[in-house]
């Protein structure tokens, strides 16, 4: 691209075009990211009470806090369960919807609806539907008392979060995977059929291998997504409870920062979370990304 010299060669115009977005990105992305790093080395007093350089003390404090490790562990557990379900469920639906069957068209339409429902809205709805006293589990609860109570049982609360997250994540992953499936040339299926592979076998021998790039991408994005967008669900469904069992890192940072006024601690955790997210993406690209970058 850089060798393309038929491009416009003005000097100030491209600068002018890029400046509006770049200035917003610098102000609301790079400055905050930098400030998080900066604050993680200082002890910040709330309400502008001054700051003091403390070296790595913030990191020592955060890393020796069992609460941090607990919420970090919960974040990873949530990431593994919720995001794998949020990819596998749409994957099965996409493979099904790719077939020429009556359900295919209405399903393609309906499965993108959640894109229009805010995480917080569906959180409010799920909190109600899975309410142990008035929700859909209430009749079962009267038969088997204590069977379902996300207000007391941390596992129940966790399951509700996962169900809501998968619900919200279906549209994006479904659309991406279906687009990948539909871009497979029809002759590929014909060739596989001539080779004797039936429709079931073709799923594993043709379809899945050929949508690996899309599958990889949905996983990469879904990991980050599950770490961050879960905030709205936690805040509306469990508020971190019961007993902190659904306090994931992103929620803990919010509570520490905005309720506990522990700016240094919250910034330090932000830094650790950012490093984790970037490393995670980098790992995925290094270990998975390279192998599946084939030309069709």
């Amino acid at each position: 691209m850089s060798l393309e010299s038929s491009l416009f060669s003005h000097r100030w115009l491209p600068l002018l075009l890029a400046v509006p977005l770049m200035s917003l990105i610098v102000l609301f992305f790079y400055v905050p990211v930098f400030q998080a790093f900066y604050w993680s080395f200082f002890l910040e007093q709330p309400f502008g009470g001054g700051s003091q350089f403390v070296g790595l003390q913030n990191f020592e404090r955060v890393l020796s806090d069992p609460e941090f490790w607990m919420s970090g562990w919960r974040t990873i557990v949530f990431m593994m369960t919720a995001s794998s379900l949020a990819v596998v469920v749409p994957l099965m639906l996409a493979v099904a919807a790719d077939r020429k069957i009556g359900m295919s068209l209405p399903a393609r339409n309906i499965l993108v609806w959640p894109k229009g429902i805010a995480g917080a809205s569906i959180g409010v709805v799920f909190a109600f539907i899975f309410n142990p006293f008035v929700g859909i589990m209430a009749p079962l609860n009267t038969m088997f008392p204590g069977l379902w109570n996300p207000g007391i049982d941390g596992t129940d609360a966790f399951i509700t979060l996962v169900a809501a997250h998968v619900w919200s994540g279906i549209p994006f992953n479904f659309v991406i995977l279906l687009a990948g499936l539909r871009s497979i040339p029809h002759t590929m299926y014909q060739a596989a059929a001539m080779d004797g592979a039936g429709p079931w076998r073709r799923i594993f021998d043709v379809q899945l291998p050929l949508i690996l790039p899309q599958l990889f991408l949905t996983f990469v994005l879904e990991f980050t997504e599950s770490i961050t967008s879960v905030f709205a669900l936690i805040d509306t469904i469990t508020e971190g409870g019961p007993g902190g069992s659904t306090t994931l890192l992103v929620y803990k940072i919010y509570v520490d920062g905005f309720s506990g006024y522990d700016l240094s601690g919250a910034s330090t955790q932000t830094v650790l979370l950012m490093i984790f997210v970037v490393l995670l993406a980098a790992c995925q690209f290094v270990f998975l990304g390279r192998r599946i970058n084939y030309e069709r």
Partner: protein
Amino acid sequence: MTATDTPMGTAIRAAAADIKLSAVTKAYDARNVVIPPLDVELRAGEFTVVLGPSGCGKSTLLQMIAGLERVSEGKILIGGREVQELEPKHRGCAMVFQNYALYPHMTVAENMAYSLKVAGVSKAQRTERVAKVAKMLGLSDLVARKPGQLSGGQRQRVAIGRAIIREPGVLLFDEPLSNLDAQLRHDMRVELADLHRRIGATSVFVTHDQVEAMTLADRILILNKGRIEQFDTPKAIYYQPASVFVAKFIGAPAMNILRVTGDGDTLRLSDGQVVANYAGQGNFQLGIRPEDIVIGAGGRLKAAIRYREDLGSHEIIEADLAGQPLRIATPFGDEMDKTSSFSFAFPQTRLHLFDAETGRAIPNSFRQAEAVRRSAKEYQ
């Protein structure tokens, strides 16, 4: 620029400009030199075809004339005016692109009129000009359509119409026929030649297709790795190729090139057979076109047949001559035994001698065909 009506309904007539490139160089960096210093002069109104294999720099050359690529060094003069620092729109050139590059969201009329619109031509004049060009190209019924609704040939015509509507002094063509099928390509060739005659603009046509070059060009410029191999009339290029590269590039099947050794009197193959009389010593490359070889008739040369290809109108024989492949095109192949060796002759006037190292032609080695000189005279 002038617009005059003729009985044929033609309205577009350009004031052709000559093009002069002096020491024009294109280099992306010290190692990546696409075109080393190049000097060439294209006469006003001439149809020049720039021919070469892909990557030879022919498209770069065209785009430098157009102003789409910057010249690293050197000067470009169009109509005597230095233009290498000018924007494309100030150079008086128009271009027909390989993939047409029509604006998909504009109608045929809007596509053709766009350059006039940019130049601030009034709407009434634009409509008038579009009507004329559309009529000239047989597009009158299609002006309201969008490019997506047109066939390949029609798109090609719109692309040409868009280029000629400004009556440019220079018309540039970047492999415009390469996306058409064989029949359409032939028709468009005829049409382009006719159009050139009527419009009269200086035309530069880039292609890798020798048939297009031979049929369209007043002169052919053959480029190889950015250097000019030969710049001459089609006939001269065919009958007097300036190098092995040109000899192999023009003509189908390609000219045979044989390694021979001169002993002062004759040129010999490695097995001792004498192919020609020549007063020179050392190694040479000897060229003979497949269609110039005469079979039988008491020929002194012998070769073994390896393969025969019957093309209906003629036959191609692939033979082995002293360990080197030899192709012969002949209408009389049928009468020969299919396996045995056979005898043939190289007519002296049809031989081409090239330097073994540089591949450049050694002129006047043998008496060349009279036709060449005649055609050269006709041209001047």
